[in-house]
């Protein structure tokens, strides 16, 4: 398209501006959510106690673990949860505290130690038993919220939005409108 050049420049400038805006100080604390490895080594929780926070961090890692791609702990999800709680997210204030308490009670009953001190296999076992529990749903929901809104999480999904396309993206599977003969799934 003949006059696409100038428009393209305008759009790219705008995208650059948006990226610059994301660097302003208010957003700096989310740096850990953006770059793997850039996570603050010692995060001081603002709402939860240090042991509570530690358990939340473990739980997020069990729910979305690191495998071929980074997991919830790499994406700083526990920090996101703590940040939300510190800013008045009632659903994860007392309910989360209560849930963590009963989680430790379960761990103590079965193994005689708190949840955080169990082996990963034991933690997984405990969590499996809680899988229909409202606390499990709660911590899973906030883990998903924190993970898939981080740079890591969006890369995991390969979110195709907020990119620049010169044409409206079209279905590439010509000759297979019903999509019944696609190549075998990769995942």
């Amino acid at each position, binding site marked *: 398209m003949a006059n696409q050049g100038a428009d393209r420049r305008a759009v790219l400038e705008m995208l650059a*501006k948006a990226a610059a805006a994301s660097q302003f100080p208010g957003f700096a604390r989310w740096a850990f959510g953006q770059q793997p490895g850039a996570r603050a080594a010692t995060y001081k929780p603002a709402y939860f106690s240090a042991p509570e926070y530690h358990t939340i961090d473990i739980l997020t890692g069990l729910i979305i673990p690191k495998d071929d791609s980074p997991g919830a702990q790499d994406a700083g999800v526990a920090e996101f949860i703590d940040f939300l709680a510190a800013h008045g997210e009632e659903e994860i204030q007392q309910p989360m505290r209560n849930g963590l308490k009963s989680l430790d009670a379960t761990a103590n009953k079965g193994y005689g130690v708190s949840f955080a001190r169990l082996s990963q296999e034991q933690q*997984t076992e405990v969590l499996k038993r809680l899988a229909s529990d409202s606390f499990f749903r709660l911590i899973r929901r906030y883990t*998903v919220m924190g993970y898939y*809104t981080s740079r890591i999480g969006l890369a995991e999904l390969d979110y195709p939005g907020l*990119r620049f396309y010169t044409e409206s993206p079209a*279905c590439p599977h010509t000759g297979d409108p019903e999509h019944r003969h696609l190549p075998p799934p*990769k995942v």
Partner: protein
Amino acid sequence: MPNQIYDVIVIGTGAGGGMAIHTLCQAGAKVCALNASRRLNPSKDFRNHRKPYDMPFRGFGEPAKRKKWIGYMDNEYTEGIWEHEIVFTKAPGTEWTWRRCFAVGGKTNFWGRSSARFGDIDFRAASRDGYDVDWPITYAEIAPYYSRVERMIGVASTVQNRPSNPDGEYLPPMNFRCMDRILESGARKIGIPYLPDRIAQLTVPHAGHPACHYCANCTEGCDVGAFFSTPWFFLPAAEKSGNLDLRTNALCKNILVDENGRAKGAAYIDRNTKQEVEVYGKAVVLAASCVESARIVLNSKSRRWPDGIANSSGQAGRNLCDHLYGTTARGYFPQLLGQPSFPDNVSSSTVAWMPRWQNLENPRQERFIRGYSVYPDGGCGEFPWYFDEIEGFGGDYKRQIKRRYPTPVSFYIQAPTQRSDTNYVDIDPAVKDAYGIPAARLHFAWDRNSLLMWEHGKRSCEQLLRASGAEYLGSGPEPDMPGTSLHETGTLRMGNDPRRFVTNRFGQAHDVPNLYVCDASVFPNCTDKTTTISILAFTLRTAEYLLQNLKKG
């Protein structure tokens, strides 16, 4: 300069106000426009290019603020843009959600962009099925205005030759995505139309505006102006003409009348100083949006117009219609499980639609009269909202989320309500807004006809999902709350009989010939189509008619 008399006072700068300002200023008329809130700064206020992790609360919003949000569009991306200070009330039993953008450009900053023309099937609906009244206008009369509007704003679509949908002058359509190809095949099997929507989004550069780059966050506002809004398309030229005095934070209180009962201007509250200010003009264009315009009319009481200006018919505020919106079906495509992500969410737009297919040949074929349209949605979104439908945790949970990512699909119905005596707007006798202006009060409930459409839509969309090889997961439990669509119509509706209608076929008040209405309040009823492009077309016609009358003096 005290008591300057403008040619025209325009109240509102959205689709109607913006088009009126544009047309009048280009013709050399001196215009004073009142806008109830501030100007937006696209690069600051439109956060459409921000990633979730660029937002402090990842787009979920600060908990305390989130509680005050009005509907899904009022969010962390558009914070500070929606009106919260100017209150409205609801009669007992009425539910109404209402996100209003009072910033310059109004809702055109964030509109859905679907832009189908109304046709004679809409204008002559009463003749076909016997309910209510025909419009005082024919399609042949308004068609040239639609064409001119399409040329101004750019609408992408195809020629479709459907009896319910007159074709227009279109830019190349958006391409069909995977989900569109699949649904198109399914729709063919069960005889439902599945076609490119008419969408005011620039698929090629148009009229000095850049083509869309399909970043997908249009509904947070476009910071490059690749879809029509009045601040991008109309207001800059109007300001450049030197004929426009645009006053911001100017909340219209009432229309002023002279001793003969004609409009002589408007009184507004300057929201910065809280002072009342009067502006005078030879004519007044009311374009504050359907319910707000009715509120202004009903609040414009004088000795000559004790029930509100131009309201000798008593119909101002009556005949309120709305679109019933809701999720008629949702599911996912197993055939796409585990496939790589496709740019399917692009434009977060109505790339396709299922235009009205009911009651076309025979107006009484279905159990309901008239018809509805459906918009499909789906593909790779910004957030995996289906996460709670998958069980478990750990590596397998993470893989299942990834597998489902390209597959979600859902449908959204757009069903018109029919006029009734019980759906209307009046003035709350007990409540005033922060500036002392009596508040609008809504009286509304879904009518039986639109609920029958909702049921029909749920069945049709379930059938379509199954015919497309999708897994059906259910529908929304009930329609969305009234007011969601922002497509209110009818409160100052047009008709030929001054005893029964507030405005005439030109949108001119029967009682007050120098008062013109340029928003969806003049539409006699609601159709299966959206309102913006019709507001633009009807306003273009009204504004040119006004100019002729001005010349005549």
